[in-house]
Every structure is written in C-alpha cells, then in structure tokens.
C-alpha cells in the first residue's frame, strides 16, 4: 500500500461547486432578509397604534437591510472569512425579530424579543471578531458566549419566571434590549452591563495596541460600533428617568447602528483600494526615473509613508541605502520590520516597513513582485554608489598611508642614521684635537667612530629594505619571502611559487606577508606560522596562519587596513579571520593581470 500524498490538491470542479453552494446560500439569505424587511414594514405601518410608525418602520428596515447587504458583500468577497455571513445573519435575525414582535401573538412576542436580543448578541460578536471573523483568546470567547447566554437564554427565562410579558415596542426593542429596560437592576441587566464593560475594555485595548495600519482598518468600525453601544447604554439608563430623552438617544443609537455596516463597507473598500494600488504601482513604475521615486511609489502602494528600502550588496554581504551607505535592518521587536525581496533566488533588497503590514502578506507579495525589476535596477545603482564610496575612502586612506610612511621615514632617518653621522662628525673632531695633543688616546675614539659607522650602515640598510626590498625586484617573491622568514623570530613554514608574478602583485604579497609576520612577532604569541603562496588560474592566493592568541582587528588596525586597500587597488580581496584564542588566518586573493 502506498502512503497518502503529502499535498492534497482540490480538483477545480470542487472549488467551483463550493462557490456555487455559497452563492446559493447568499441568495437565499438575501431573499429571506428582503421578505422579512417587507413584512416588518407592512406590519409596523399597518399597526395604527404605533407612534412614529413610518419612521420606525423605515429605520428598522434600513438597519436590517444595511447589515444584510454589507454582510453579503463581505461574504462574496472573502468566502473564507465568516464575518460576512455573521453580519448578514445579524440583519436577517433582527428583521425576523422585529417582524415576529409585530405579529401580535404571545409566542410571536417571545420569539421577537429573543430574536432581537440575539441580534444584539451577534452585534457584540461582530465587533469582537472584526475583521477576521475569528475569536482569538479566552477573553474574547468568554465575552461573546456571555453575551449570547445572557440575551438569548437568561433574559427570556428571567422574564418568564417572573411572569412578565415580553416588552413590545417595535424598533425600541431592537435598540433597547429588555435587560436594560423594564428589568434594569435584575440579573440579565447586570450581566449585560458587565459584558458591555468587557467589550469596551477589549476594544480599547485592541485600539491601544494596534499598529498604525491596523488602526486604519479598525477606526471606523470601532468608532461606529462603540458609539452605538454607548448610546444604547445611555438610552437604557436615561429611559428610566426621562422617557423623551431616552427615546431621543434611542434614535441617535439607531442612526449609529446604520453607520456600522457603512463602516464595514468602508473597510472593504479600503482593502479593495489596496489591491487597486498594486495596479497603480505597476503603472507608476513605468515613470520611476529619479532616485527615491521608487520608495515613494512603493510607500504609496503599501500605504506606509515610513517605508525605507535597503539594497543588498553581495560583495560585503550587507545592506546599503540608495546612496550606498551601510544600512542596518531594524531589530526584532521594533515598530518596523524587514521583508526580503528576491529575484531568481538572489537577494535584491529589503523593504523596511511598518510592522502592521505583516497582516497583509498578499499585498506585500504583490507589491514586491511588481517592483522586483525596478528594485534590482536601484540595487545596481546603490551598489555602484557603495563602490564609489569605498574607492573614495580607500583612495584617501592610501594617500594618508603614504604621508604617514614619509613621516615615518623622516623620523627614522633623523633618529637613526643622521644621529649617528652627527655623532661620528663630533667624534672625528675630537680625534682631530686629540691627535694633536695626545695621539695614543685617539685609538679608542677611532674604534668608537668605526662602531658608529657600522650601526649607521645597518640602520640605512634596514630603512632601504623598508622602502623597497631589493631582493624582491632582483630575485622575485620566493627568495624575498625566504629572507622575511629568516628574519622572523617565530618559525615559518613557507611555500611560494618559483615563477615571477606581475611586479605590483609580488609587492602586495610581500607586504602582506611582511606585515603578517611582524604582527605575529609583536602580538600573536605563536609558536609556528605557515605561509603559503600559490599561483593558479591567473590568480595569486596567499594564506598565512599562526597558532597564536588571535584577536587581530582587520578593520581597526591601520596595518591590515592599509594592506586591504593595497590589495583592493589590484582588484583583489583580503580576509582576516582572527577569533580570540584560535590563531589568526589571513587570506588574500589577487588577480594576476
């Protein structure tokens, strides 16, 4: 028996039939809502006893239908999001409740009362679950469950147990579910107040912690929802003491109720706009010419004016900005995050954007794939700028290094050979005067002068070797490196090519080895150094490794930095690996052109 496949693909026909089923359900729900709305209208207007019958009927139906319509719209657009169905059902249940309440029978009154209460509980559900339609966390689930239990079960049972009839006041019933009305102070009302308090706290907390992007989605819905819940509560409280005032606030709550579906629609339009913005971006990209325009276009498409772009430079394995300056990606946990952009498996750039855009991965993906080519172009531009900056800096460092070298030479000549020659001159003068007076005491003076002459010669030789090693130009790299190895206090194991390399390459290698051996002698406390120079495939590769203490600083030390510049000037690369306690490895790679 074969094992089941890891990936299950859904046949296209299934998807289509499921879509057809959902479409059928929407159509049925829509028709039911329309019929119930007509029924409410006929029943309310037909009931001559009801005050403000027309207005009441129009408002009730408007509320029901606006929830129904916006719910169906959300449902049609996002089938995976259950909030659309919930909003549409809310509208239908509210209309059903209003219609049942107008029928006139006792059962109808009970049914209407319960249904209107259920619609209010669903409204709490919608507010808590917006915009994903899902309840996350125990607090949200407990709050919504408490709303349903209180309004749909506890309130009717409480009234029935007390022998009260369900209140019947048409639309006011919708706006003032009974726990706030006739039974204020009783258990269902107390629970309802706790639920509303919990809801207010939850919405405030969500708003407080929301990122800017999420706030934009939440703003209208929370504002309208919060306003009408607040007005409902106010209506219920005021109604106990001042009937007309309560009614007025009730009307205001009704208008606020109508605004909630509009706010939901606005949310939908906003996300549609986000999609449209990708199309707009594609058009904008055609005209992106000036540096910085791409960032603006992308920021506009993503709705994030704080968007920053970082371009990948593979040579340095780091990001730079458009001007080629090093760019640090934001830390984990900051208000901005980075999304990597890749083309053909190669890293191109990073979009550093508001953390809330993580909630819109499709938008990010659409935008980054649309802008891939433009980002690649800007990356090349940034890389070039980074190169130019590098060149400018290394050129300045080379000039500076040359100046320092001249200063060092002057000081060495002044403190060394020149000093000795002056001393010799004075001694010879002394010899001169001594020869006149007591010739035999001149002998030790002459010996002293000879000694000084030997020292001066040695110092001049050392200096000349520092300026340029004659053995390197005369005999080539092998003998020159052997001479370096022979002078090194740390034992050196050397292998070098016998053939001659281009003169600048030989010089660069010589100075790398010379500096490395000098560093080993000064700092490494090593017992052994290996120096390997190979000439293969038109490249010279140098590897120097010691078993010392490590910890050399390639970027900070002027010696290694200068060598890196010298090698970079030959289009080569120098790499230093010197972890503390693990010795130092220097690797240089130079093309032999």
């Amino acid at each position, binding site marked *: 028996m074969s094992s089941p496949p890891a990936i299950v693909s859904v046949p296209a026909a299934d998807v289509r039939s499921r879509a057809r089923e959902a479409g059928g359900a929407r159509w049925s729900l829509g028709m039911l809502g329309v019929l119930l709305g007509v029924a409410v209208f006929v029943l309310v207007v037909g009931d001559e006893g009801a005050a403000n019958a027309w207005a009441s009927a129009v408002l009730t139906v408007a509320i029901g239908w606006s929830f129904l319509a916006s719910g169906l719209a959300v449902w049609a657009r996002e089938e995976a999001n259950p909030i659309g169905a919930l909003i549409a059902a809310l509208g239908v249940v509210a209309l059903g409740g209003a219609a049942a309440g107008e029928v006139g029978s006792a059962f109808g009154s009970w049914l209407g009362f319960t249904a209107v209460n259920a619609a209010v509980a669903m409204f709490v559900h919608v507010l808590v679950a917006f915009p994903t339609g899902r309840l996350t966390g125990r607090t949200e689930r407990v709050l919504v469950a408490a709303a349903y239990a209180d309004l749909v079960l506890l309130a009717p049972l409480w009234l029935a147990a007390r022998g009260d009839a369900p209140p019947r006041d048409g639309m006011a019933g919708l706006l003032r579910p009974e726990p706030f009305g006739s039974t204020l102070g009783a258990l269902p009302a107390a629970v309802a107040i706790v639920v509303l308090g919990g809801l207010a706290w939850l919405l405030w907390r969500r708003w407080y912690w929301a990122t800017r992007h999420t706030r934009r989605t939440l703003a209208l819905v929370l504002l309208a929802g919060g306003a009408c819940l607040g007005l409902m509560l106010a209506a219920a409280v005021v109604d106990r003491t001042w009937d007309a005032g309560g009614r007025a606030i009730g009307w205001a709550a009704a208008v606020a109720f109508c605004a909630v579906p509009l706010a939901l629609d606005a949310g939908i339009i906003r996300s549609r706009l986000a999609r449209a913005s990708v199309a707009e971006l594609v058009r904008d990209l055609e005209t992106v010419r000036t540096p910085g325009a791409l960032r603006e276009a992308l920021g506009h498409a993503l709705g994030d004016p704080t968007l920053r772009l970082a371009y990948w430079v593979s040579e340095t394995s780091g990001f730079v900005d458009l001007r080629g300056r090093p760019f640090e990606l934001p830390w984990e946990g900051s208000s901005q995050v980075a999304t990597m952009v890749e083309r053909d498996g190669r890293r191109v750039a990073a979009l550093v954007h508001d953390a809330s855009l993580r909630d819109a991965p499709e938008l990010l993906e659409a935008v980054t794939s649309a802008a891939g080519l433009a980002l690649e172009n800007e990356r090349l531009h940034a890389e070039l700028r980074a190169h130019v900056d590098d060149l400018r800096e290394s050129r300045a460092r080379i000039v500076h290094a040359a100046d320092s070298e001249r200063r060092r030479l002057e000081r060495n000549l002044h403190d060394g050979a020149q*000093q000795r020659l002056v001393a010799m001159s004075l001694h010879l003068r*002394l010899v001169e005067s001594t020869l006149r007076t007591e010739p035999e005491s001149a002998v030790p003076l002459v010996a002293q002068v000879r000694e000084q002459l030997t020292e001066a010669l040695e110092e001049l030789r050392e200096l000349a070797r520092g300026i340029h090693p004659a053995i390197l130009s005369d005999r080539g790299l092998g003998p020159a490196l052997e001479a370096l190895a022979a002078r090194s206090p740390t034992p050196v194991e050397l292998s070098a090519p016998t053939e001659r390399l281009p003169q600048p390459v030989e010089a660069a290698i010589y100075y790398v080895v010379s500096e490395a051996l000098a560093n080993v002698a000064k700092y490494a406390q090593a017992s052994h150094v290996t120096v390997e120079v190979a000439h293969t495939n038109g490249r010279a590769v140098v590897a120097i490794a010691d078993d010392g203490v490590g910890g050399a600083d390639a970027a900070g030390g002027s010696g290694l930095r200068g060598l890196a510049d010298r090698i970079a000037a030959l289009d080569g690369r120098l790499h230093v690996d010197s972890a503390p306690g693990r010795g130092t490895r220097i690797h240089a790679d130079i093309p032999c052109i």
Partner: protein
Amino acid sequence: MPPRIVIVDDDPSFLATVRQLLEAEGFAVVGEALNGLDGVAVAAETAPDIVLVDVTLPDIDGFEVVERLADGENAPPAVLTSIRSAEDFGSLIETSRARAFIPKADITGQALAGLLDERAGTA
C-alpha cells in the same frame, strides 16, 4: 678662567660626546639637562657664560627654552643646535632671541668661543 657652558639635549650619548669635545677644547661644562624645563633651571642655578640648546626636546622645545632664558635676569647667550639644518626651521631661528644656530655636526669649542668673543666685543 675657562668659559662655562650648560648643554641641554635629550640624547645622553650626544651630551657625553659634546662634553668630551668641549672640555678637550678648554670649556668647563657646568651643567647638563635632558629636557627644556630642567635646562632653564640648571642655567638659572649655574649662571653659565653660554647655553647650548637642542631644538627638539621632550617637553618644551629649544625655541621656548631660549625665550625663557632671555626673560630671566642676567640672561646668558643661548645657542640653538639641531641635527637638521637652519633652513629646515624657516624664519624661526631668525625671529628667536637665540645668539646663533650651529648644526650639531659643526659644534666645536672654537665656534662657541667665537660667539663669546663676539659678545665680549659688543659688551
């Protein structure tokens, strides 16, 4: 009475050589100092006939030593010296209050004595 001299230079071997040379040529080296401030102090204590000062010193330089000596009472004439030549210092030597500049390689008792005679002549 041999002319009395103080030598200020931060190189002990140079000090020793110059002392030997000048003493052979009839000078009395009454004081030596390895830095500028000590040099000024030693000159004040010993009241020499002449002070030989190296331009390059570890604390204050030779020009500053010359200024301080000249500001003191009964200031002895100061002679600047250096491994470098006079041109290397531009107009600094001319504008200083030093009696003269002698390159180190040219220091002799005769040259210094000549400066003292010049002073005696002008006095």
